[in-house]
């Protein structure tokens, strides 16, 4: 007795094709979400490296500016003190801004990542049609 029926693989059923097509489309969507997560992680690392230097640079700029003004106006050390404190304040504010960004990045990387990706999926975002 010969089996006349073709093997199941050679002619996939319509359901097979539909399922595979759906899987591919889902993967495309997931890849976009994945890129978003990766970005959040890398940004977290990058921003963490900024904090120390930010304060140092702020005080340096303040000090330099203060010394320059004192030298010109012969008001030493008024402008030095004023500018260093102003620079330090600016530095602290920048650090606060950085940590706020890092919080956002961390939220994307950890915990809420899956939820974020899920809620983001249905709403087509304006700038991911490029890929």
């Amino acid at each position, binding site marked *: 007795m010969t089996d006349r029926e073709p093997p199941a693989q050679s002619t996939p059923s*319509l359901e097979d*094709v*539909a399922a595979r*097509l759906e899987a*591919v*489309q889902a993967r*495309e969507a997931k890849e976009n979400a994945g890129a978003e997560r990766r970005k959040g992680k890398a940004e977290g690392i990058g921003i963490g490296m900024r904090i120390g230097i930010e304060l140092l640079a702020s005080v340096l700029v303040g000090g330099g500016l203060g010394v320059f003004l004192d030298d010109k106006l012969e008001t030493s050390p008024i402008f030095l003190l004023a500018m260093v404190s102003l620079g330090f304040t600016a530095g602290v504010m920048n650090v606060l801004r950085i940590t706020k960004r890092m919080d956002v990045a961390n939220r994307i990387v950890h915990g809420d990542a899956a939820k974020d990706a899920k809620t983001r999926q249905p709403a087509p975002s304006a700038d991911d049609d490029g*890929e």
Partner: protein
Amino acid sequence: MPQFDPSSFPSQIFWLVVSFIALYLVVSRLAVPRVAEVLEQRHRLVQDDIDRAASFKAETDQAIAAYEQAMADARAQAQEQIRIVTNEAKAIAEKRTAEVTKAVNDQTAQAEARIAKARQDALDGLMQVAADNAKAVVAKLANLTPDDAAVQSAVAGALKETR
């Protein structure tokens, strides 16, 4: 620290500018357009394939729907046809039955009428014969010529009794 020796600054800045411009040319003329092109091509290819598969699937779905619709239509049409034909046949049959019944009834009625008439004729004939006989009998026996009407009513009365 050699980093803070200003004598090397002009040279570093000069070569930095030169090499940065060179690298910018490499990136903007070679790297970016070519890589962007190949990525764009690949993306288009993949998207095209997915789109085509999706459109094929839509076509298939459509074909299946059309086939099912056609099947349903055909079935409905056939049923309608059957209904019409059945009705027609039924109507014809009924008409024929009615005709035949009518013909049979007519003929029966005719036959009955004929029978009744024949019977009446026979009865009338019988009465005439009986009356004639009775008259003859009376004339022979009593030498009387009875009244026709009297004889006939007497015969009718006698017939009624025998009946």
